[in-house]
């Protein structure tokens, strides 16, 4: 479990790595690598599902996209401008130089471009293997296989996955251009025309152009046009900060998209160890918070927070778990369920029938616990929250960590996840030192045995 914990902590870096290209353009609150991966995975999935060609394995596309930036944990992202840029791209004095560089596509010879690409690939390859080296074999083999396929880009699937990810960056560039005007959209357009070769990806790129550049409203009525609209809406989750962290005054609270990215990989890895259907798991994870595009991120504190509370009053409340009287909690939960159901129906309303129902079904699976995969991902969701809370607490010891520890012990019962929570427990105890009291394993076993004996006396089979 400790190798998994280490891997998950490293993944967290992708949630805070702001994308280099957007920093160069001086975008306000730019998307991070994890934000990009989240929407790229959804783009690859939904685009494949409406493709006019033979359908590829959508879960494999999603998984390939989920891992395609792993080396960036250590080596950061690269842009085609890298060889021309000053050393410190955040330096105020070089801003004008950068602006000038960005005005045209980098003038690098084809030979030089190829050489740089090969060099980068070699470094990525080495870094990737370093990152996954200590993972348990069953998951390492799967991730290694996906990486090898993606890196060679010889299969239709790997080309589709890679170009889907590039297309997400293009879509984001156009969205920033429309919002802030800072992005050179014509250069981006030229670049995508040169580099994206898959016919259906090109078709979708043209649809994006019609809607976002030509502002042709009629195009939005086609299936591909609806996909553009859907992805625009889903993109809002990149900037929607998670309410629980905002209330707890976390520094740099993560976005819903970042949380979903981490949850997708964590539930995939842990689900694999449990022998579950991880193809279904990654899709459930990607779909689970889509309703928040319209319903927002609601928290169990909502019923007890008055709108006029100031920051200090809120902080006082979130230092303890939200214990709401049973009847009041039921009313809130039913209302929340209804709002979220309406939101997911609205978000998917104009998608093709098959895709719409697939997304709704996956969303329902985690809500209602229909399959063992749905029930598992629901518990991973709780565990990811504790994991993230610990990360905030490590950086700021004033972060109210106590409620997350208490609630995890009420909400998770899966043996694999409980083992992982034990691992978190150990790490937390080492970090805190202030909580040295630890029960010995033998005592815990004795206690369990005693409880089991008493449980049995209250049963009838």
């Amino acid at each position, binding site marked *: 479990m400790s190798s998994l914990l280490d891997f998950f902590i490293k993944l967290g870096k992708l949630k805070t790595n702001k994308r280099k290209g957007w920093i160069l353009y001086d975008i306000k609150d730019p998307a991070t690598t994890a934000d990009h991966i989240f929407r790229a995975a959804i783009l690859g999935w939904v685009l494949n599902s409406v493709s006019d060609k033979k359908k590829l394995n959508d879960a494999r596309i999603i998984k390939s996209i989920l891992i395609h930036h792993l080396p960036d944990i250590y080596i950061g992202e690269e842009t085609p401008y890298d060889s021309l840029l000053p050393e410190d791209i955040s330096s105020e004095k070089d801003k004008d130089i950068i602006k000038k560089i960005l005005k045209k596509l980098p003038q690098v010879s084809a030979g030089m471009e190829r050489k740089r690409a090969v060099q980068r690939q070699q470094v990525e390859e080495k870094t990737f293997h370093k990152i996954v080296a200590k993972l348990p074999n069953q998951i390492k083999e799967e991730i290694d296989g996906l990486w090898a396929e993606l890196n060679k880009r010889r299969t239709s699937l790997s080309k589709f996955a890679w170009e889907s990810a590039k297309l997400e960056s293009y879509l984001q560039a156009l969205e920033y251009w429309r919002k802030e005007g800072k992005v050179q959209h014509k250069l981006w357009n030229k670049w995508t025309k040169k580099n994206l070769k898959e016919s259906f990806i090109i078709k979708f790129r043209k649809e994006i152009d019609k809607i976002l550049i030509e502002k042709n409203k009629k195009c939005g009525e086609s299936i591909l046009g609806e996909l553009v609209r859907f992805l625009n809406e889903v993109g809002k989750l990149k900037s929607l900060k998670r309410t629980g962290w905002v209330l707890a005054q976390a520094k740099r609270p993560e976005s819903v998209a970042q949380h979903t990215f981490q949850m997708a990989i964590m539930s995939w890895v842990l689900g694999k160890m449990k022998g579950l259907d991880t193809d279904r798991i990654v899709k459930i994870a990607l779909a689970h918070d889509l309703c928040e595009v319209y319903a927002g991120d609601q928290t169990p504190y909502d019923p007890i927070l008055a709108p006029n509370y100031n920051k200090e009053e809120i902080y006082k409340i979130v230092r303890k778990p939200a214990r709401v009287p049973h009847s009041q909690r039921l009313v809130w939960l039913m209302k929340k369920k209804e709002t979220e159901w309406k939101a997911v129906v609205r978000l998917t309303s104009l998608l093709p029938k098959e895709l719409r*129902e697939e997304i709704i079904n996956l969303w329902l699976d985690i809500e209602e616990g229909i399959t063992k995969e749905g029930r598992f991902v629901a518990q991973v969701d709780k565990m990811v929250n504790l994991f993230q809370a610990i990360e905030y607490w490590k950086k700021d010891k004033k972060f109210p*960590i106590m409620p997350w520890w208490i609630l995890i*012990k009420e909400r998770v019962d899966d043996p694999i996840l409980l083992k992982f929570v034990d691992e978190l427990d150990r790490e937390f105890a080492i970090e805190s030192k202030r909580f040295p*009291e630890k029960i010995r394993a033998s005592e815990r076993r004795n206690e369990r045995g005693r409880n089991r004996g008493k449980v049995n006396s209250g*049963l009838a089979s």
Partner: protein
Amino acid sequence: MDLEREIYLTKEGLRKLEQEYEELNNLKSRKAKEDAPTTVASLEVDPEYLAFQDDLNLLESRIVELEIILKNYKLIDPPGKGAHKEVFLGATVIVEVEGQEDEFTIVGSLEANPMFGKISNESPVGRALLGRKIGEEVKVQSAIVSIYKIKKITYRL
């Protein structure tokens, strides 16, 4: 389905699963005859069955899962009157934890829904409460220790 774990069900939980099993089998027969209703994503659709309408594999695997559950479950019965002061499966327990009051019903993993106050007997808190009596303080161990004081135990099953 993890058969190494005991499957505990309340009477109400059993009734729901039996009903679901019947409904899904009916849906399967209708699909075989190709007269299954087509679904529309609207609020009128019962979400419980929407997931199965267009996914035969999912429908089949859920039916198999339900068959395993219905063959292997153990029913949670309230204990005899003399034991009502002790926490067994199926108990609704009012506890005080860190100065706050809360109410849990302890159920099997399948019926657990902590947001609705139903916690699993296999969760650390569920496990710790089982076998304890009114007035007892139950310590749940972790890096942060939490203490649950049992204030009231009822059996509403």
